[in-house]
């Protein structure tokens, strides 16, 4: 279980998170939604130590990891993988080397063994035949699949997806959505998905937390969201430019 407890984060004069408290249950898919720039990615990066809170605590399975050093975060990052918004594959490496990188670094395996494991993970996303090609040869959808394969290399218990379907065509987006669902159903992986893609949100999420003005506005099931009478939530769902939400 992941617990964010009263997280505050400021960048210069801008207070992005103003006391966010959120709990993520094991094996479930939580969507964190909200407008662009509201701090969704900022919040999830606190879990893996890519950002540190100004105040507040982060707990992973009951252990306070807030003040961990960079090295202490390595095992945390092994358990909690992250798929970044831009896929962030390294252009100078083949797809196989990209996927093998976490295996070599975290497990400290020999190149040959790491590559064999990486090929197996690429097969999971149907990219094993393209293993020796470079990321620049592929579009966003394919790159995202490889990024997901890379995130799964260490068999993580938790996976953070940062806007996984943004910029993808509807078919690729559906494939990614299905992969997230499968991870939870088949392997029991807990997923935290940062998104504002309504179709994904309502088809995949077990729970939704909406971030607004640095705080959690609503935390509940997709059904609770649909039924919510909160005008901010309703405006987000309807996508109307008119309403209380500041654009």
């Amino acid at each position, binding site marked *: 279980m992941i617990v964010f407890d009263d997280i505050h984060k400021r960048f210069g004069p801008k207070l992005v998170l103003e006391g966010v408290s959120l709990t993520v249950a094991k094996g479930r898919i939580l969507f964190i939604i909200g407008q662009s720039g509201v701090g969704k990615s900022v919040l999830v990066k606190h879990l893996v130590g*890519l950002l540190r809170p100004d105040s507040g605590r982060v707990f992973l399975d009951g252990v306070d990891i807030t003040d961990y050093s960079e090295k202490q975060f390595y095992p945390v*990052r092994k358990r909690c993988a992250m798929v970044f918004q831009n896929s962030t594959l390294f252009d100078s490496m083949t797809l196989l080397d990209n996927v093998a990188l976490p295996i070599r670094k975290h497990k400290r395996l020999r190149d040959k063994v790491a590559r064999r494991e990486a090929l197996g993970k690429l097969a999971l996303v149907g990219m094993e035949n393209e293993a020796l090609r470079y990321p620049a040869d592929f579009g966003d959808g394919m790159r995202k699949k490889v990024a997901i394969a890379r995130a799964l290399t260490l068999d993580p218990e938790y996976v953070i997806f940062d806007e996984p379907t943004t910029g993808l065509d509807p078919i690729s987006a559906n494939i990614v959505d299905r992969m997230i669902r499968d991870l939870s159903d088949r392997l029991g992986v807990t997923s935290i998905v940062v998104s504002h893609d309504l179709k994904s949100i309502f088809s995949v999420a077990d729970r939704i937390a909406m971030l607004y003005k640095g705080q959690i506005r609503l935390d509940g099931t997709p059904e609770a969201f649909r039924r919510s009478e909160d005008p901010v939530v309703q405006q987000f769902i309807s996508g109307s430019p008119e309403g209380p939400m500041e654009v």
Partner: protein
Amino acid sequence: MTGVGADRSSGSTGSTGEGERADRPSRIADILASVGAPVFYVLSTVGDVFKTFGLAVYYTFRGKKRWDEVINQCYQIGNRSLVFITVVMAFLGMILIFQSGLQVKRITGDFSQMGAVYLPLLIRQFSPIIGALMIATRVGTGIAAEIGSMVVTEQVDALRMNATQPVKYLIVPRFIAGIFMTLVLVVYSTLVSFLAGMLTAHVYFEVPYDTFWDISLVRWADLLIGVTKTLCFGMAIPVVSGQAGLAAFGGSEGVGWATTAAVVNSSLAVIMLDFVVGGVGFMVFPTN
């Protein structure tokens, strides 16, 4: 007493005075903030640079190196700077010899010591600092832009997620290549500037080549100080520029800021190191 004083004070100044007094602490806070913010920025930047330098030195001697990347960086640094350095150092050599030749002609008319005096000056001062400033401009921007782009596109975060230390992966190859190539480029720039000066002295003042080519005034101390400065500059430029790249934030605007910071901070570092190493050099090896 306090009450009376307070009453008097409010009576004499009225409501405007109360407002002014209430504003005073916030104005003082604003002034302190406007002075403190740049000081804090400078101190934190210097702290970050030293931290990055410490990590770069540590990982240079520990762990596996990416030697293919070191060779690639050597090629990048040399390739990026060669034409720029050749043109600037050749013109610098021509200008310095032409201007000093005019003075010599006016005062003594004896050109025999021109090359002999010029060479130690080049080795000890001009080549290291001018060469390093050019490398800081040409190479520092490239390093900051490359690393800064990786930061804003979250590639550095992806490295950290894969248990890879960004300083070890990104800065150490540039650090090793920077030390080696700065030395090579400064030796090359000395040669270019000296040869350009020799040609100028021959064409304008009819100084024979063998008279100008005089290394009798070059001391081991000049060589030692020149090489020490060059090594320091070679270490400082990749570290300062790399740190500027790692500190990038936001989008393309952040990368722009990082490249500007890389040039400004690297140039400042070169000037300050020149002063420090030069000063220590003069104390250890007095000129007289």
